């Protein structure tokens, strides 16, 4: 089918285009930056328009009330996805209908709140904005309700009309208000809207209520009471199909035809000639089109006209026959000059059971994907898109859901809802999520952890790594070494962890103490990420053991750091110097073997190439240190030999 060729809308950028220059742009999260520029790099230079404009789509996301709509419909959506495939179809249908009703009640709740706000606000433009949103939601609910009746509930002939009547009644609520007004007045029968109310009720098939209002009239006029009794009789005996009853459709049809003939006879016999209102009502009951059309103002919409017309001419209408009446009703009601609005076209497509057209036209007319995405998803679950022979059926659903969810992602808190929607798009959901979740600004650690958890749950390892790396880098820039280290560990970034460990060690040699002791003491197996990190952790452990006076353990650890080659050569001198206090204790801590090992380490260190960058002074210090160590080691050796050679008695 042909796509309607729609002219795109133009948005004007203020204070730009005066010299007919070019417009530069840049995509942003949820917006577009636009600025005046000149791409022809030569040409007159001027101050130009020194503005950068931020252009947004008309996003309903900004509205706090609609946010409730998004939140609650998200819950319904997720619940819908979880419905198991293997439930028998009859039960499924009732489940789908109830889900559809849930969606609609969420829309109505939102509408009511918007309406209240529109009434109570002082701000004129805000009130009109609310008003606009209310009418959009009204239209949405109207369409959704019709789709529910026709596509999800799939009422057969007989019930179909009843559902359509409910639909019309729900969306023409001013009748109740007027009826109340009339009944509560001092003299209902004299009220100027009296007959309007009666006729409106009849048009909606609410015969009992019509009779109730009529009775107010009857009690006044004794002489014409017989006329009213006749009308009352007609109204009372109007057959209404009962789907749960035992009467078949055929039986109902016969009964209805009898009643219809009865009404016709009353007309022929001029029973109601004395009262033009009753005459009008009788003509309505007979389904006279001209009379119905005269009630345009009370009907107010062509679809009300359609349903009323069907009520009084074809109450047993079958779904496939609906479209013929719909088209002709619309033409009759609107007349030759008026052209249908988008809403009218959408409703007509629904009556024609053209789902695809409904969805397409809704997508075009609305600027938020919420409605089409959720409705299409529901219809897809009812397996309706496939049965309409759209080979791109499920792609259509996914396309719309992806569009909706992508829009949510630009919002600072609603993006979390979007994740669930992406999860339920089997083809592209994951890759869309990967692309967009990386862009969520990591304002706080808490937010970063929230984003991380989402990625970790879905095994998005590259995104996890990237986010952790960004956080680590940021922490490092701000000199928060502990935070940088824990982020690097989480990123499993060995190179960065090494770098940060070096910084820790640098800090230690500058200040003489470690920072972030909590972190270093509790590294656990994460220590193994990088050699330098392992060394850092163990080195810190050495200091801790020393502080707790567990000297022999400390000694063993220190030695192992050198012999197991965990410590980098550059730090051996530091380690050996750390060994000095242990060597100079009264008690012998290093055993003979250990002392030999320390000595060999020292010699190994000295046999290596000298660092040519050392100044003479530094070289002096180094050689003094070495001498001190040799002395201390020798002394320790003698004491250790003696100790080990002594037999304890």
């Amino acid at each position: 089918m042909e796509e309607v060729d729609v002219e795109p809308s133009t948005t004007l950028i203020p204070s730009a285009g005066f010299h007919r220059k070019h417009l530069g742009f840049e995509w942003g999260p949820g917006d577009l930056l636009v600025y005046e520029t000149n791409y022809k790099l030569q040409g007159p230079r001027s101050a130009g328009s020194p503005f950068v404009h931020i252009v947004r789509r008309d996003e309903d996301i900004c509205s706090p009330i609609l946010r409730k709509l998004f939140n609650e419909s998200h819950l319904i959506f997720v619940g819908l996805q979880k419905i198991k495939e293997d439930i028998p179809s009859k039960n499924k249908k009732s489940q789908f209908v109830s889900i559809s009703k849930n969606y609609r009640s969420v829309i109505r709740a939102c509408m009511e709140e918007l309406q209240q706000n529109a009434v109570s606000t002082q701000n004129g433009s805000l009130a009109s904005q609310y008003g606009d949103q209310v009418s959009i939601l009204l239209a949405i609910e109207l369409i959704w309700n019709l789709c529910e009746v026709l596509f999800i509930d799939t009422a057969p002939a007989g019930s179909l009309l009843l559902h359509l009547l409910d639909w019309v009644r729900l969306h023409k609520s001013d009748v109740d208000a007027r009826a109340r007004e009339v009944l509560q007045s001092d003299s209902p029968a004299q009220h100027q809207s009296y007959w309007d109310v009666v006729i409106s009720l009849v048009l909606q098939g609410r015969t009992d209520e019509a009779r109730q209002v009529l009775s107010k009239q009857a009690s006044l006029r004794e002489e014409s009471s017989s006329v009213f009794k006749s009308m009352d009789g007609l109204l009372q005996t109007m057959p209404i199909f009962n789907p749960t009853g035992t009467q078949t459709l055929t039986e109902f049809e016969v009964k209805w035809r009898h009643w219809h003939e009865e009404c016709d006879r009353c007309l022929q016999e001029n029973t109601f000639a004395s009262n033009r209102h009753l005459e009008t009502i009788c003509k309505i009951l007979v389904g006279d089109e001209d009379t119905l059309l005269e009630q345009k103002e009370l009907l107010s919409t062509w679809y009300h006209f359609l349903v009323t017309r069907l009520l009084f001419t074809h109450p047993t209408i079958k779904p496939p026959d609906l479209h013929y009446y719909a088209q002709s009703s619309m033409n009759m009601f609107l007349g030759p000059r008026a052209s249908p609005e988008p809403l009218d076209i959408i409703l007509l497509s629904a009556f024609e059971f053209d789902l695809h057209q409904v969805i397409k036209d809704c997508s075009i007319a609305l600027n938020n994907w919420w409605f089409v995405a959720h409705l299409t998803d529901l219809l897809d679950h009812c397996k309706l898109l496939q049965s309409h022979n759209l080979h791109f059926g499920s792609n259509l659903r996914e396309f719309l859901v992806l569009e909706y969810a992508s829009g949510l992602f630009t919002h600072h808190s609603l993006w979390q809802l979007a994740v669930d929607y992406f999860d339920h798009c089997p083809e592209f959901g994951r890759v869309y999520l990967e692309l967009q979740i990386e862009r969520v600004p990591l304002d706080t650690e808490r937010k970063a952890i929230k984003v991380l958890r989402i990625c970790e749950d879905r095994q998005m390892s590259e995104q996890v790594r990237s986010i952790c790396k960004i956080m680590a880098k940021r922490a490092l820039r701000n000199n928060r070494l502990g935070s940088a280290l824990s982020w690097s560990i989480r990123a499993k970034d060995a190179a960065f962890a090494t770098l940060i460990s070096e910084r820790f060690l640098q800090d230690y040699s500058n200040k003489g103490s470690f920072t972030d002791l909590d972190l270093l003491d509790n590294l656990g197996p994460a220590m193994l990420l990088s050699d330098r990190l392992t060394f850092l952790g163990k080195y810190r452990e050495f200091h801790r053991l020393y502080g707790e006076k567990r000297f022999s353990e400390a000694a063993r650890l220190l030695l192992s750091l050198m012999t197991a080659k965990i410590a980098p050569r550059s730090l051996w001198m530091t380690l050996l110097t750390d060994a000095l206090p242990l060597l100079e204790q009264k008690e012998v801590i290093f055993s003979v073997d250990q002392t030999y090992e320390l000595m060999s380490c020292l010699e190994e260190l000295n046999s290596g190439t000298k660092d040519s960058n050392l100044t003479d002074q530094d070289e002096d210090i180094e050689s003094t240190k070495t001498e001190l160590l040799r002395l201390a080691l020798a002394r320790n050796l003698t004491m250790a030999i003696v100790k080990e050679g002594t037999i304890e008695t």
Partner: protein
Amino acid sequence: MFVAKSIAADHKDLIHDVSYDFHGRRMATCSSDQSVKVWDKGDDGEWHCTASWKTHSGSVWRVTWAHPEFGQVLASCSFDRTAAVWEEIVGESNDKQRGQSHWIKRTTLVDSRTSVTDVKFAPKHMGLMLTTCSADGVVRIYEAPDVMNLSQWSLQHEISCKLSCSCISWNPSSSRAHPPMIAVGSDDSNVTYSGKVQIYEYNENTRKYAKAETLMTVTDPVHDIAFAPNLGRSFHVLAIATKDVRIFKLIPMRRESANSSGPTKFEVQVMAQFDSHNSQVWRVSWNITSTLLASSGDDGCVRLWKANYMDNWKCTGILRGDGSPVNGSGHAAALSAVGVPAAAQMVVGAASAGRKKAQLMPG
């Protein structure tokens, strides 16, 4: 669409480029006034200029952010034949209080003999690599081997394109299925070399970039070029700004096992072509999910293009200057008038009287 906000950029001359950082919280602008300004978005949603400094001795054409994994790093390129790399330094506490930050130059790349027309960072999975292209027809790829030391950059590759280059675009895909790929556009009016878009691919064996494809059907000067984000597709999508907007589909052809060396061969298809600008198109750019393409043309308009689920492309919006001059006070006169968003264009029954006739506005 509506103008939500207008920021007075305060440059003393034309702005040539604006660039958002990866998270959309910072913005850099560059201008013919030879300076770059950095703007930060506060918690209140307002933009504040946190740095402004002279970067070059000529007009600055482009400015771009590196991926935040590498820290806060900017690159700029200029008419003065150089490109430069800048890093933000965490300032003193009183700077922070004043809301100012400092950027220092880490390196200047002076290899080009002519104006440097574009500068782009390569996708992050390739490391910290910077690419420039110049009017001298050379694309230069630099790498910083030590990401902690941004003053050391080495020129890894020089690709001679034989035509004056105006724009470059890296294929952002990090899939192992194909090697790194860069597209180069030329605005040369030379008719001998007719294909104005060249695509180069990295070869693991030779460790060099080799030409994989020339789009021979693009014969007019090309002003901008942009690969679309990949989204797990097996083919590549490339948008081109030339005398019209063109979108190409590049489908890698399966290699015969014998000929596994050499660049990939592509089947090139035109996905869409739009001449609505009716004039030269200067810039094209994709949004993050590659669902929307924006283009800017000589007609002074920015147009947005979108494909529906059947891959039919349509224009879904136009931005145009309203032709009004900036008034003396320096504030956009129409700010308040355009501040209120237009509601969706659907109307209900009788209530439509007096309201705008429903504009069919695609979402």
